């Protein structure tokens, strides 16, 4: 009886329960980061890793695609970490932006955004080619997936890719986003992340709001709004050029044999 009561409590108060759970995760990470690594690892970086591990466990348990949020007890996480509240919190960080800094580095962020779309696309197309894909539609879709996990399926659907190829494109994008979340704090020194401009350059190149927002949160919270300002244009730009210009170029380079 207690179990059904607890489940009812958890499901009906999903968001509130999520606040409590994430609070515990943050507290645990802060303590571990301070005591065990003497502050060398950021608490938030550790908390994000724990979150990803829990997502893996959730996926294993349920076979669903929303990580821990698919476990009925933790369904509230889908609301707390969903795009609505995530974007709401990101917009709120704009209060910390210095307009002059953002304006000075704006054009640099735009250049980085262009590079951050072209470079992953070429790498995605090249990798797909190396793995035996020769048709322009599959090559473009996998290339687009390497830009972000939303650009992949949008492009694939627009140009008529097969569902296996679209699945691969989504997987590349999700893997890239997770890789960015995990490696950004480690590579922060190498990338000289420390100024608003550097954050905007990084965000333009790394792409995906989820990867950049978590990566910067785990590195230096002050840099988040500058990165977010640029990263939020990533998916839009990708969806604009991948099924159009990029597809035409790939089709010209790899004309259909059949």
């Amino acid at each position, binding site marked *: 009886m207690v179990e059904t009561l607890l489940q009812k409590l958890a499901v009906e108060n999903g968001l509130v329960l999520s606040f409590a759970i994430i609070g515990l995760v943050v507290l645990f990470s802060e303590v571990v980061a301070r005591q065990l690594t003497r502050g060398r690892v950021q608490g938030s970086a550790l908390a994000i890793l724990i979150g990803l591990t829990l997502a*893996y466990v959730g996926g*294993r348990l349920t076979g669903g695609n929303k*990580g821990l949020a698919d476990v009925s007890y933790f369904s509230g996480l889908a609301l*707390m970490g969903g795009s609505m*509240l995530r974007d709401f919190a990101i917009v709120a960080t704009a209060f910390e932006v210095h307009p002059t800094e953002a304006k000075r580095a704006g054009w640099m962020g735009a250049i980085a955004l262009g590079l951050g779309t072209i470079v992953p696309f070429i790498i*995605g197309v090249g990798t797909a080619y190396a793995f035996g894909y020769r048709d322009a539609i599959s090559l473009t879709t*996998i290339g687009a997936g390497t830009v972000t996990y939303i650009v992949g399926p949008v492009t694939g659907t627009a140009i008529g890719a097969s569902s296996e190829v679209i699945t691969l494109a989504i*997987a590349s994008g999700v893997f890239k986003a997770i890789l960015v979340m995990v490696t950004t704090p480690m590579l922060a020194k190498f990338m000289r992340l420390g100024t608003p401009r550097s954050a905007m350059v990084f965000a333009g190149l790394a792409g995906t709001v989820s990867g950049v927002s978590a990566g910067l949160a785990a590195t230096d919270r002050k840099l988040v709004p500058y990165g977010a300002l640029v990263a939020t244009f990533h998916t839009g730009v990708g969806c604009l050029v991948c099924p159009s210009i990029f597809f035409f170029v790939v089709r010209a380079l790899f004309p259909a044999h059949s």
Partner: protein
Amino acid sequence: MPLYGTALLAGCHLLGIFLGELLGRLLGVPANVGGVGIAMLLLIAVRWHGHARGWLAPRSEEGVKYWAALYIPVVIAMAAQQNVLKALSGGPMVVLAAVLAVLACTSIAAWINRHEPAAAAPVAEIS
């Protein structure tokens, strides 16, 4: 009242997302083009105007700052619902494409940032 700040934030958020969707439609793209970025620019403009004209009370600003402070917890909740299983089961091509893309982009970011003009100051305190 803090709620004024939160309502202001909500207004900027909604208008920004709407303009992003509209921009997507105009460009013929089935995606939101920079909606969150536009919302951030709106909020920056509103704050600047509110400070210049003196109608934005510090109590109202708290309603925005609280949400900005919730940012990291929200991102952790986001991490907890990623499709990690799918990402890990995508096979060697997925892994290779993603790793190479991150390596290349990180290197380019490092190269650009090493050539940052000295004039750019580190993140200053929020005034």
